[in-house]
Every structure is written in structure tokens, then in C-alpha cells.
């Protein structure tokens, strides 16, 4: 593991007084390698390492832990700091209904997340309405209906042939009329470089006026995480990020990349296909996982 590798790299630190540019250069390369293996974006990793170098130089060599442990702690704490700030649940509106818009690339786990959020808020005693605004994917609306039914949460299905934003508008009328809260809107997966689809989701956003826009990203996403997250943030303004499929063995470096490039907090992680498989985000656990 990284600590063991760094112990080896830093063994000549024993008996030295301070961490210096020279004696940690090799260790920093090891850490950069670990970050890249974990899919942290190349430029983000470079910047991160530069910050760690700045922080580490001049520090006294610890007496009570091994040099590897000391160094990993510096890196780990820095990762936690980068990942850590921001609120951990959606922002509930003072005037209901609270409106949540769920967006992201194809297959990232949005529809499943919408239903998971429905269950979560129903268990909190609320009365959520899930809105099926994916008019593109075959059987997407059926999928959300089946999921909603499985957890006793109402799903709004629009008129056949209606545009996504019309469905959103009609759903809000329904929500206000029948006192549903929160309203959670599922949208089709889309590429950030598909102008037509980015236009569609901008229109859905206009219709929904969401209190919370959540970007759903697959934990196994590699270098591209910075591109898509940044583009969605610039197009829509994101309030939070959800990292899905964390029950897999992806290291999850995308969390660092997305956080670094958008500054937005990771609010939840998906840890399974079942609708109760939603956890709040723990930066220290994700940091340890990334470092391997």
C-alpha cells in the first residue's frame, strides 16, 4: 500500500530534522502515481502535489510515527480538506415545494438516485413527487414508475409526446395542487457537448426553478470527469454532486477532480442498486480509498 511504499522511499528521512524539497521529491512522485492510478485528473493531481509540496517543506520529521505514515497523513488531510466542505443534504426551501433537478451523463445512475431520494425523503415523513422528464431513453418513464411504486412514492408521468419542460411544468402544478414536497426531477442522460440536449435541460431548469441541481457522476469515471462536471456547472450551475456505484472497486479519484474543478460539495454516494443504498458523503473515507 501507499504507506508501505512511502516508508521505503522515505527511509533516509530517519535521523533528519526536517522535510526538504530534496528528501520528499521521490515521495511526491509516488503520491502522484497513486492519485493517477486512482483516476484523479492529471492537471488536478499536478496542482494538488504542488500544494502538498509547499505544505510539507520545512515540517519537522515526526518522531512518533514512520516517515511514510507522516507523509500519508499530510496528503490524506490535504485530500480531506479539498473534499470536505459544503452542506451534506439538499437545501430545503422555506416555501414548499422544494425542487431538485437531477442531471448527468448517460448511465451514471440518475433515475435510480431520484427514486433513492424519494425513499429517503418519504422516510423523513415528507411526500415526494418524482418527475419522469426523460422522454428519450426507451422505457425510462416505466423504469421510474416501477422504482417509485416499489418504495411507495408517487411518480408524475406527463402527456405522451410532451416536451421535457412541459412535463416539468405540469408536474409542478400537480405538486402545488396536491401538496407534494419535495419535487425530484429525473432527466435524460446527455453529453455536455450535445448542444441540443444541453438546451433541453436548460429549459427544464427554467421550468423547474430548482433549489438544488445535483450532478450525478459514476465513481469509475476517469480523466473526463473534469470536462463533464465543468460543462454542466457552467451550463446550469450545480449545487451538489452525487457519486454513484461506490459499492464497486473504483478508487473514485473523480471525486477529487469534480470537487477541484467545480468547487461544489459531494452530497451523497450511491452504494448499490437497491433503493436504500444511499449514504451521505464521508470525505475521510473517500480520501483513504483514493490513496489506496
Amino acid at each position, binding site marked *: 500500500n501507499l504507506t508501505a511504499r512511502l516508508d521505503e522511499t522515505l527511509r533516509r528521512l530517519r535521523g533528519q530534522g526536517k522535510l526538504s524539497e530534496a528528501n520528499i521529491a521521490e515521495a511526491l512522485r509516488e503520491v502522484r502515481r497513486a492519485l493517477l492510478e486512482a483516476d484523479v485528473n492529471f492537471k488536478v493531481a499536478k496542482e494538488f502535489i504542488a500544494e502538498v509540496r509547499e505544505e510539507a517543506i520545512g515540517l519537522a520529521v515526526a518522531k512518533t510515527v514512520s516517515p511514510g505514515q507522516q507523509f500519508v497523513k499530510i496528503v490524506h488531510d490535504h485530500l480531506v480538506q479539498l473534499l470536505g466542505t459544503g452542506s451534506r443534504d439538499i437545501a430545503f426551501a422555506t416555501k414548499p415545494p422544494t425542487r431538485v433537478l437531477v442531471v448527468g451523463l*448517460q448511465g451514471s445512475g440518475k433515475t435510480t438516485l431520484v427514486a433513492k431520494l424519494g425513499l429517503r425523503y418519504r422516510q423523513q415523513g415528507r411526500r415526494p413527487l418524482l418527475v419522469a422528464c426523460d422522454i428519450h431513453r426507451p*422505457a425510462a418513464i*416505466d423504469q421510474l414508475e*416501477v422504482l417509485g411504486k416499489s418504495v411507495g412514492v408517487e411518480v408524475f408521468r406527463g402527456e405522451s409526446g410532451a416536451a421535457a419542460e412541459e412535463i416539468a411544468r405540469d408536474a409542478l402544478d400537480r405538486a402545488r395542487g396536491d401538496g407534494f414536497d419535495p419535487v425530484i426531477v429525473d432527466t435524460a442522460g446527455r453529453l455536455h457537448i450535445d448542444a441540443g440536449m444541453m438546451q433541453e435541460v436548460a429549459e427544464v431548469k427554467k421550468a423547474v426553478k430548482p433549489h438544488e441541481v445535483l450532478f450525478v457522476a459514476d465513481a*469509475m469515471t*476517469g480523466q*473526463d470527469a473534469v470536462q463533464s462536471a465543468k460543462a454542466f456547472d457552467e451550463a446550469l450551475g450545480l449545487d451538489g454532486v452525487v457519486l454513484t456505484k461506490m459499492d464497486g472497486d473504483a478508487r473514485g479519484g473523480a471525486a477529487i477532480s469534480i470537487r477541484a474543478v467545480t468547487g461544489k460539495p459531494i452530497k451523497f454516494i450511491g452504494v448499490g442498486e437497491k433503493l436504500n443504498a444511499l449514504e451521505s458523503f464521508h470525505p475521510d473515507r473517500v480520501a483513504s480509498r483514493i490513496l489506496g
Partner: protein
Amino acid sequence: LGAGRRVDDALLDEVEEVLYEADLGVEACEQVLDALREQARAQRLRAVEDVVAVLREELLRLLGEPPPPLLPAGATRPRVIVLVGVNGAGKTTTIGKLAARYGAEGKRVIVAAADTFRAAAIDQLAVWAERSGAEIVRQDPGTDPAAVVFDALTAARARGADLLLVDTAGRLHNKANLMAEVQKIRRVLQRADPTMPHETLLVIDGVTGQNGLLQARGFHAAMGLTGVVLTKLDGTAKGGVVVAVKTELGVPVRLVGVGEALDDLQDFVPRAFVDEILG
């Protein structure tokens, strides 16, 4: 890597960035960069064009030959192709595209709805079957997937189908029970005919990072893969992880998904793939 630049450290740094950002991964990047440094030491890099040529050559060498066709001439009937992969990679959509492609060639195609778990998975495949003109074999949700596959094979043989495409549920390779389930599908086919399945394709999402190699290792050990379908290459991701999948496991990319429509499927062309990475 624009034309006319001279070869210096700044350029080599940029090359490193381009390779890493293509999701090639540490091992493959180091391998390619070593080949480049070797050429630099031997004074064979005069201009950026030389650098690009070396990179292209090395990446093509790692990727190997363009793969054989999925449905070769004179293949025994039915040719059985199983698609596996992690959740959301694009298996069901790819089956629709394959059904359309071979349907258009006049082949009789049957699709097996062996994802009996996920909400509306069978309905989703049914839409693709309809659009592509393929026949679908399906059972109620919750049925043993292997039973659906067995049913579908029986139907394919009875109807003289040319091609049987098996859709499976998304599954993470680190889940032993799910991997056992997909191994059972393989066993059912093998028992019916030891040459089956003729192809087992791992569908990998183009945005996947190094986890793609772990996915390939897991599915290859469980199933024996004959190829990879790399999807969503119409996005900005480069899909470079497939280089490591080829060099470590010998599993080649067979097809590329380039969109969500029925005809958005292409044969894998190594040269085009490499040129995309090198920009």
C-alpha cells in the same frame, strides 16, 4: 501537439499530459513515454511530427491487429453472443444496435432478455427489438436469467436464427454472487454446445478510468472475454484504458458505440482510435 514545434522538455511534458488524459493509465503511459525517450536519446526526434509518429506507432503496436468480424461468413447457426459489463455501460443499447446491423444484412436475429432484475430492463430491450426487427425471448421479471437464456437458445435453434444476442443485467465484478450468476449463463450455453457462447463481449463505458482494467480482469477470469465494446465515444472521453486491457489480457476492442441511435455502432479501427487520442 501542433505542427512545426520543436522537440523539447515542454513538448514531452505536454505529450505526457495528452496520454494520461486519454485514460491510458500509469503503466501504458510509462511504456509509451519510455519508447519516446528511447527515440529522443537516439536523436531520431527532429520535429513534433516525429514524436507523433513514434506515439502512433507505439500505440498501434500495443493495440494489435484490427479484430475479426463478429459474425463471420459461414458461422454455425445460431451464433451466440453474450454481452456483460457493469451497470449503465450500454449493454442493452448495444444489443439493439447489433440486432439492427445484422437484421439489415438479412440475418434472423433473436435477443434474449436475460436482465430479469432491473426495473423495466425487459421493456427497454423490447423497444430495441421492435426498432431493429429482431425477435425477443422474455420471461417475467425475477425469472432465473439462465432459464431465459436456455429458452432463447431453444427458440433460436427451432427458428433457424443466425444470431442470438444475450442481454445481461449490469453487475459489478467485485460482487461474487453476481459474477456466479453470469457464469451460470455461460455454463447453460456450454452444456448445450461446448463452442458456446461464441463471443463474450465486455461493454465498457468510454468515460471509464482505470477501473476498466479491473472490470476486464474480473469478467475475463469469470467468463473468458472475446472482446470489448467501448461505448459513448461520441463524448469527450478517449477510452484509453482499453490499451491496458489488450496488453495485459489480450482482449481486443471489437466495436465502438458512438451515440444513442440504432445505427450508432462502428467497427473498431485502431488507427482512428489512436488519432483521436493524439488529437
